[in-house]
């Protein structure tokens, strides 16, 4: 009975207009139903096309390209189903690691390596929840990568944990199409010079927290091994090697010729010590137009002498001899010495436009930037130490950035003190002409704007236009450019006993600047949230601010 009814419906469907479309067109319609980004489970609703009718199912199941993006976070059943429906078509294995994929399923994924075009697996943010089974699964995935990958174009593996894997050559040294490698905390592949040739991108980074663990570098490549790989990749355009080598104690190989990388545009080298960095740089012939960044880790023991050594070692490059390619040098400082994350970065660069940095122009066209994870500790002593070792440090503080969060303000209550610390470190407060603020509730822009409000503590603020008041000493008269990131203008702060929305407070600050003959030339709003749909409140700033520019990612939230 059911069969007869189904048959009648089948016949009826056959004359429907949609059924007269050839399968390749229907398949194309399905293709456009697939969202570009997959978020489980809402975005896989499109797969319901295969449940509409017999023909649609048949077309969908035969459209292998619909099943070619295998997202691990969809879970074991889906991964298996996608792999089987892909039927040998080139596939992409993508997604963050989701706890629960078994060793068997992972081995199944590895079996599809011969028709895998791209692998992008990361669990950076989820690894803390990983079980021993997950570690086991990862280990088996790695073992599975011990097979030729004839069409693999790129591989990206990012983990939050370094585990020990059995040594084996990756892809059996056969991945002829491989052009991009990104490994984050995944350096335990023993590799050989022939592992990859004609790479365009090579990025191997080990986080600071792993560098001090015993055995971390047991399977890491040596500098000479990597140089050999680079020798076979003259097409390389982007090279990043950070902390991925173990400390180098032996004698340098004398048979090395310089590796010529004529197409390189970006190069970041972060060795465990300065001499390794300099050795690596000497071995590479890099176009002068390439951006070369040197990353050096420094710890709490750093002092004037260390800085002096570092700066004098790099002085030839810093003083800008034309023939030495140099873009910037980054010192990463682990101030609490927990070997977990960098707390401060000092960057010497040729470009001043780094976000959330305090930037000094230490020589014409050469900038020192300071980036912090937060301003709880402004590291004034360290900065002063650095300054003392730079004879030409009496440059111009041209830009100051702050990433102060709400808690920082609440705890300290005297948010302006953060600014004071920064400015005192340089003694150059009057020359700041550009300010960034980032990830805050909007209060820091008031600080940046020169304390037309004064912090009283616990988020309570007072207006002040008294130029002798302590707060107004941070007024930045030369400020001409202000960039605000992620400010929610509809939020309120308490000022003079009133709950004021930030956009009103902002307007008051701007008008105060205008009265003080220091109006802003340019205001940039990035990722900010507006109080009204059409950003009409900005009308009130016309004539007060020169130019207002909105990035595309601003949004309104009238509710």
């Amino acid at each position: 009975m059911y069969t007869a009814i189904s048959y009648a419906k089948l016949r009826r469907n056959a004359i429907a207009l949609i059924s007269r479309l050839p399968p390749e067109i229907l398949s194309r319609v399905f293709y456009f139903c697939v969202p570009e980004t997959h978020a489980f489970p809402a975005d896989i609703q499109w797969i319901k096309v295969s449940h509409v009718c017999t023909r649609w199912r048949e077309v969908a199941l035969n459209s292998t390209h619909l099943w070619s993006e295998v997202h691990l976070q969809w879970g074991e059943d889906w991964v298996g189903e996608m792999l089987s429906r892909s039927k040998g078509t080139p596939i992409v294995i993508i997604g963050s690691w989701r706890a629960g994929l078994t060793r068997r399923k992972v081995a199944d994924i590895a079996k599809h390596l011969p028709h895998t075009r791209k692998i992008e697996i990361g669990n950076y943010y989820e690894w803390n929840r990983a079980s021993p089974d997950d570690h086991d699964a990862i280990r088996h995935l790695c073992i599975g990568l011990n097979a030729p990958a004839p069409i693999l174009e790129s591989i990206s593996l990012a983990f939050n944990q370094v585990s020990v894997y059995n040594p084996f050559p990756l892809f059996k040294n056969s991945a002829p199409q491989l052009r991009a490698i990104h490994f984050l905390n995944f350096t335990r592949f023993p590799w050989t010079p022939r592992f990859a040739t004609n790479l365009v991108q090579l990025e191997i980074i080990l986080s600071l927290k792993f560098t001090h663990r015993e055995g971390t570098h047991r399977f890491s490549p040596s500098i000479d091994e990597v140089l050999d790989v680079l020798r076979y990749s003259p097409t390389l355009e982007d090279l990043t090697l950070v902390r991925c080598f173990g400390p180098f104690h032996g004698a340098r190989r004398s048979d090395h010729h310089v590796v010529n990388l004529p197409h390189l545009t970006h190069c970041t080298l972060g060795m465990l010590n300065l001499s390794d960095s300099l050795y690596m740089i000497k071995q590479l012939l890099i176009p002068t137009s390439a951006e070369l960044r040197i990353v050096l880790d420094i710890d709490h023991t750093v002092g004037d002498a260390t800085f002096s050594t570092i700066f004098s070692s790099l002085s030839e490059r810093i003083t800008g001899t034309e023939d030495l390619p140099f873009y910037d040098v980054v010192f990463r400082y682990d101030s609490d010495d927990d070997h977990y994350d960098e707390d401060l970065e000092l960057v010497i660069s040729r470009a001043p436009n780094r976000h959330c940095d305090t930037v000094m122009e230490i020589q014409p066209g050469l900038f020192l930037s300071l980036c912090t994870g937060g301003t709880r500790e402004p590291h004034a002593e360290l900065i002063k130490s650095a300054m003392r070792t730079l004879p030409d440090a009496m440059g111009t503080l041209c830009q100051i950035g702050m990433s102060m969060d709400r808690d920082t303000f609440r705890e300290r209550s005297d948010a302006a003190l953060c600014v004071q610390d920064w400015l005192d470190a340089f003694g150059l407060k009057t020359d700041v002409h550009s300010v960034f603020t980032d990830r805050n509730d909007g209060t820091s822009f008031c600080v940046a704007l020169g304390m037309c409000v004064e912090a009283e503590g616990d988020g309570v603020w007072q207006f002040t236009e008294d130029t002798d008041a302590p707060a107004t000493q941070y007024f930045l008269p030369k400020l001409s450019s202000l960039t605000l990131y992620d400010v929610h203008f509809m939020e309120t702060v308490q000022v003079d006993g009133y709950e004021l929305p930030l956009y009103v407070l902002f307007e008051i600050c701007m008008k105060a600047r205008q009265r003080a003959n220091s109006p802003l030339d340019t205001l940039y709003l990035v990722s900010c949230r507006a109080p009204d749909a059409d950003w009409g409140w900005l009308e009130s700033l016309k004539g007060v601010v020169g130019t207002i520019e909105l990035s595309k990612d601003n949004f309104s939230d009238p509710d």
Partner: protein
Amino acid sequence: MPTIVSVDDSTVPGEGSSRLLLLVSSDNKHIVVEEDIMSRSRFISKQVEGFEATSQRHAILLPFSSFVLNKVIEYCSHYRGYYLLEDDPDAAPPGRSPVREWDQEFLDVDRNMLLRIIKAAHYLEIKSLVGSCARAIADMIRGKTTEEMREILGVENDFTPEEEHSPSSKCTG
């Protein structure tokens, strides 16, 4: 294959710089159009190449109505002289780029018309129009339930209970 009939040169003034084509729709409407406009259609281009080989020009009979044909001609006229990646046989297939604004308005038609246009575009081998129509149809059904999709596109559930619970439908999303 379309039926090709010989036509009088006086009907189709195909000489000179602006050559014309005579297209005949399934409802027997004769539509004269500049060859240049229809060059986006691989099918028409191949027909024209055939004319040049035989030194004879013909009317091209097409298996869809004049209403649909006029829509296709409107599309081709709009993009006359434009380079569209999708129509470049040498270019890599484009990804899921959004529907062009003009196409969105152009394809703001009822379901049946949309399906007829995509079929005609497929027949005429105009890949860019096929792509835009496919996107428009996808937009109609995206995020809908299975039942809603059936309603929108006029199809019925013809699965037997066994098929409905077959292994290939076990992942229902």
